[in-house]
């Protein structure tokens, strides 16, 4: 029987090694990422919590099935985010839905800080507008902005998740921020 109380003291890499010996340890890993990944899936797709949960289950099963593919040159978090990203994109394509973004209060705050957006405006209004702008942004910009400013990943992690060169990630973030700000100013101030 696995002692899950030890889980918080173990690193991701240690838990991967333990999970390969005993699948019960895998629960420690999935619990660690469950909430983050569920929010990530909901942010990048139009799926409701129920659908996002189903996707996340598949992500965890795939992660376990491919656990030996994980290489310690990467961060485990980047690797599991990559699986979640690919699975979500594949589900979006299967269901042919236009991706939307699901926000919470903290998400709005992070976006306002990152984009230097005034906080005078009503939160609900902001949420609606940010959602609208992000939903209409090209996928390549939307995914890097979400990873950078909502999931707070650094450039190398985003590069590992999306399998894109680090310099490309930097350029996409820069260009995405500019496009987002332009659209936001247009909507709010009519500039």
């Amino acid at each position, binding site marked *: 029987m696995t002692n899950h109380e030890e889980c918080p003291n173990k690193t991701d890499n240690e838990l991967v090694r333990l999970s*390969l010996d005993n*699948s*019960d340890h*895998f*629960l420690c890993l*999935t*619990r660690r990422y*469950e909430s983050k990944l*569920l929010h990530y899936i909901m942010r990048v797709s139009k799926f409701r*919590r*129920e659908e996002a*949960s189903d996707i*996340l*289950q598949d992500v*965890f*099963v795939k992660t*376990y*099935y*491919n*656990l*030996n*593919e994980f*290489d310690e*040159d*990467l961060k485990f978090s980047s690797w599991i985010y990559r699986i979640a990203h690919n699975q979500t994109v594949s589900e979006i394509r299967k269901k042919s839905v236009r991706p939307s973004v699901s926000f919470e209060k903290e998400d709005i705050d992070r976006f306002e800080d990152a984009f230097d957006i005034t906080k005078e405006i009503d939160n609900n209004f902001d949420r609606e507008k940010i959602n609208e702008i992000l939903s209409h942004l090209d996928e390549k910009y939307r995914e890097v902005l979400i990873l950078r400013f909502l999931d707070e990943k650094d450039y*190398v992690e985003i*590069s*590992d998740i999306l*399998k*894109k*060169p*680090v*310099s*490309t990630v930097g350029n996409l973030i820069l260009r995405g921020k500019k496009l987002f700000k332009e659209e936001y100013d247009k909507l709010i101030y009519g500039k």
Partner: protein
Amino acid sequence: MENKDISQIALQKIKESGIKPISKKVFSLKRIIFWVFVCFFVVIGALSYSVILSILFNNDWYLYNKLGFIFTLKTLPYFWFICLLLFTVLGEIYYRKTLLGYRHRIITIIGIYIIITGILGTILHFVEVGEMIENSISSNIPAYSVVVFDRDEIWSHPEQGLLTGQIVEINDDVIKVSDSNGIIWDINVNDTSIDKKVKLEVGEYIKIVGDMDDDIDNLFNANEIHLP
């Protein structure tokens, strides 16, 4: 809405379905295969590069003065340039599939690929591998002559002052040469510049730059004689 214990459900699914992680060997093999492809495309890229160097170095550049820029356009090894480009692209694609290959920019990967194939290709050229490959392909694959410019064809135009053939007889100022059509030409070698490497012996092949005599049939006044 009730929040599901996603982790627990996933683990249950794993156990019930008897899912086991794919063996590490499978992933190691996959990684090795991608690297084998990368190395393969580097090596054949280098071989293509050595053939390009061999063709360029063995080109009859002294004809540039006689035929002009059209000579350069006609004799550039386009087929091998396309091969090199193709192998570079394939090498880049397979490198990108390696573990951390995606982290680098296309321009960096292609730049490094070109440097490696360039160095390796130059070494192969100096040990005459490029020349060997070209000779082997041109003599064993008939279709090759369709995709590359036949450099010997340029020498089958005595009316333009270009002739090639085998020496069949040597006299004082005239040598007899049989061309590819079996026509015997009298070559006037009086006041002719002869390449130091050329051996004027019966049975040897030579290339002649000069003029066809207007008055006497099959007489060719040679200005220069070169190695084939």
